[in-house]
């Protein structure tokens, strides 16, 4: 990471501590903001957060790796999360999974070459009466059909 990038990140995190506080309780909101803006929480970011919150970097790492929506590695700009839990499964998630893999040209767990889409499974997102359902970043898509997949993906540039 360039020095200028590091400085900018430090200032950003310092601002976040001003907004959320610099106590341990502020950890999760700060991590979520960094994740939102940068798509991941880098080594440097984790250490800066640890320094400003006065906790150990490995504790930050332990929290980041615990939660499914936080990541230490950069992923695609748009993360497609397909619900694999039983109601969506019974409603036809397999077909959607197939279509997504074909359309994006990647397998689940991978990111497209142009770093645009990452494809993942997730567990129940609370749309069980309208399955199959998926999340793309925060947007929820319900009653997805194979043909709708193409339209949905088009929305993301």
């Amino acid at each position, binding site marked *: 990471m360039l020095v200028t990038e590091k400085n900018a990140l430090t200032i950003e995190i310092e601002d976040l501590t001003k907004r959320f506080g610099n106590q*341990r309780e502020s950890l999760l909101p700060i991590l979520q903001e960094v994740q939102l803006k940068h798509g991941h929480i880098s080594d440097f970011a984790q250490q800066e957060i640890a320094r400003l919150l006065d906790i150990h970097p490995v504790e930050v790492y332990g929290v980041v790796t615990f939660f*499914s*929506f936080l990541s230490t590695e950069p992923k695609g700009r748009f993360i497609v999360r397909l619900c694999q839990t*039983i*109601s969506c499964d019974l409603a036809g998630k397999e077909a959607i999974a197939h279509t997504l893999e074909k359309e994006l040209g990647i397998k689940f767990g991978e990111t497209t070459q142009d770093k645009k889409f990452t494809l993942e499974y997730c*567990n129940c997102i609370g749309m*069980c*009466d*309208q399955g199959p359902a998926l999340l793309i970043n925060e947007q929820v898509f319900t009653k997805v059909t194979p043909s709708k997949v193409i339209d949905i993906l088009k929305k993301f540039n």
Partner: protein
Amino acid sequence: MPILNKLVIFDEQNINDSLKKALSIEPKDVVMEVRESGLKGRGGAGFPTGTKWMLASSANSKQKYVVCNADEGEPGTFKDRVLLDEYTKLVFEGMVIGGYAIGANKGFLYLRGEYRYLLDKLNSYLEQMRKENRLGNNILGTNFSFDIEIRLGSGAYVCGEESALIESLEGHRGEARNRPPFPVNTGYLGSPTIVNNVETFASVHIIIAKGAEWYSKHGTSKSTGTKLLSISGDCKKPGVYEVPFGITINEILKLVEAENTKAVQVGGASGTCIPKAEFERSISFEDISTGGSVIIFNETRSMLHILENFMEFFVEESCGQCTPCRIGNVKLLDGLKKIRKGECSLSYIHELIELGKSMQIASKCGLGQSSPNPFISIMTHFENEIFSQR
């Protein structure tokens, strides 16, 4: 999507100015009202809400907290999403009433990360409440101050467990705590904290509006009031329904127009699987209890596949700290995989059921204590079907 079925508790007419009413009586009388209503937690655990509030209110501490558990992660549960979206007033004002009752000035709404799309709407609502003096300093002209902060989850089912939720609020991994001490004595940052489900707070709102006596007339003697069920699976009309406690499975199936039903999973992945022979049983804390999830399986569905789906869920979502849950769930899932390969004997399955029984009593939190439930109930009721599948 609105709540379907005839609204009883959640009828528009029952939504009054409970906040004003609550603030006009003593906090201990608010607690008393909730106690007398017989309200039990609506998240799944079913702990008497009045007792929880009484313990928290009598705890000696300057700082106390109210937490609304909107981490709705139990598979098949989506009723809280609807409540937050369309009955926001009930939920937030219920929290304020809770704060008043126990003597807290700060509340958190712990909103699961998957419901992030609701965040802006909910924050705007809070802003509106502040403008109307229904939140913030000196609410409605009294000397009671209370404010609410929304905190997001980040994709961990286990954070729906109250002590794991508190841990994640404190900036730790979402690992459940040792209990005792309980959150009502030692909760968020060591202070007395009540953690209640979205539907519980909403119910409190109505109890204050219409009175405990009116409320307790609904339902059964041990399960007062009504329950929101989120019904999905093989049925024509999935959705959120308000039903009276004591309703039978058969009645539910009729309501949602389900046909050729083989089994009904009540209580989500951590609930029990009810076979056809038991469809006359009822939803209540004394019979089949649930946080609201009802998933319907018809005759075409493979019970082995369903069970695998549940166990995969638990293997991934376990926080991983205690031995029985972390490794036990893996063993249960491995048993199912062995069945698929035709390598599993019935006696080994019975060993696994015994393991499940140990997990139910030796695990550190509710996740590990209930993850064997689907394994035990599905294996017990559908042994023949599962073993004939190769």
